[in-house]
């Protein structure tokens, strides 16, 4: 680990800092091997992405896709193939046929990070500063900045995914979804920590509550990184907010059992709409 703000390191790699600031930061980072390695990784990833092509639909795939959608929606597709496709298209067969054609692929211009976050006031921001909104949407090909949570009606979407990702076997409540983006009060977090500390003293209860994680468990990536293991169990902890006017908050609690089986192991709780700032349970 190093002392440099990850956001500044990222901005330096993206080339979005002012020249003077970039030069000064680069000089400081050069003296810190860990930071230098991090900067190199950021640059390597961006370089790889910027030289990659962009996948495109093959002609046959495109035609079949449009026809299948039109059929499902009960529309007449102008370019549908002669035989109407079945509801579920045999994409495997289409893909094999398409791959036999000559593919002409144009490089999609990679907008990349040179145009995103260009007007970030990176010096004042940390990853956890949810109150700050990125101002630079001018270069974004789609969309404009909006308050978080606006128009994001998750009920309109196929899944019942919450602010992040729906778990495989535990759906977050709609109330928790609607609180997406709202910062938790310190009092709420302390209350959760206290409650879970009590639970931690009851290993049998932890054993009953814990369920295996899967790839869709919210904040799994962050928990795995912080706990240093993917062998985690998790459970949901619904905590009423201190303000009764606010909806209850459903925390995702990860449990790393003790390696030797003795003791409760480690607990780490996340609010599902904020995977950056966990609550460590003493």
């Amino acid at each position: 680990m190093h002392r440099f703000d990850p956001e500044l390191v990222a901005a330096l790699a993206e080339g979005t800092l002012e020249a003077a600031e970039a030069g000064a930061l680069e000089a400081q980072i050069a003296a810190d091997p860990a930071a230098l390695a991090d900067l190199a990784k950021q640059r390597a990833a961006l370089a790889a992405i910027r030289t990659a092509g962009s996948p495109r639909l093959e002609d046959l795939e495109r035609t079949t896709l449009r026809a299948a959608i039109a059929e499902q929606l009960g529309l007449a597709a102008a370019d549908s193939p002669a035989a109407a496709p079945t509801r579920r298209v045999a994409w495997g067969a289409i893909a094999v046929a398409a791959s036999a054609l000559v593919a002409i692929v144009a490089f999609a211009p990679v907008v990349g990070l040179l145009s995103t976050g260009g007007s970030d006031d990176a010096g004042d921001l940390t990853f956890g500063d949810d109150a700050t909104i990125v101002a630079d949407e001018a270069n974004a090909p789609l969309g404009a900045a909006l308050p978080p949570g606006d128009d994001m009606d998750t009920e309109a979407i196929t899944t019942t995914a919450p602010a992040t990702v729906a778990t495989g076997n535990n759906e977050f409540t709609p109330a928790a979804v609607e609180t997406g983006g709202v910062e938790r009060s310190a009092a709420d977090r302390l209350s959760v920590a206290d409650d879970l500390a009590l639970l931690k003293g009851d290993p049998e209860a932890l054993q009953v509550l814990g369920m295996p994680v899967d790839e869709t468990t919210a904040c799994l990536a962050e928990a795995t990184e912080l706990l240093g293991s993917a062998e985690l169990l998790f459970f949901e902890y619904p905590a009423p907010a201190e303000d009764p006017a606010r909806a209850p908050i459903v925390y995702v609690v990860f449990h790393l059992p003790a390696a030797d089986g003795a003791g409760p192991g480690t607990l780490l709780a996340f609010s599902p709409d904020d995977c950056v700032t966990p609550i460590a349970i003493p």
Partner: protein
Amino acid sequence: MSDRAEVDAVLIERYLRGEMEAFEQLMRAHEDRVFAVCLRMLRDREAALDATQETFITVFRKADRFAGRSAFGTWLYRVAVNTCYDHARRFRRHLAEPLPEGNDPVDAAAGDAFDSIELRPDLEAALAALPAEFRAAVVLADVEGLGLQTVAEALGVPVGTVKSRVFRGRRLLAEALGNLRGPSDTQSDEGNA
């Protein structure tokens, strides 16, 4: 609002008034982007096509719920990402598993000649190795070039979380690329970074 967003807003309104041709225009404008995101999320062409189809079906069936306060494209990306998560959960695909050599569906016309002009198999493999949440952030922010606020809205997480996931995702991506290509390639890349 960008030009594209303005055009999309008009097309959605026309579609909701019953103009089916507006729906076709919307789909044609976005089908490649949606497919690209799905392919990078699922790393399987067949699954990506399925997810693309599902995405558009969902969006256009629920278009009446789109109030226009955000850009249509942002909403579309959100549906696409959630559809991909659904696919992953439904079929329990191990997105991080490397594919057998010589059978990479991402590069359907596999061959050395395509490495330089089509998808980079090593990049696609490295992306697939990322945790799903980091992959989504990197794909939308770095690969698709969306602004961080748009990515945050599409993923339904705070901007701070997006920044964190992009940073961590790039770090893991670089490490995976280094592992895939070996020390000599990694050194030459770092020299060019």
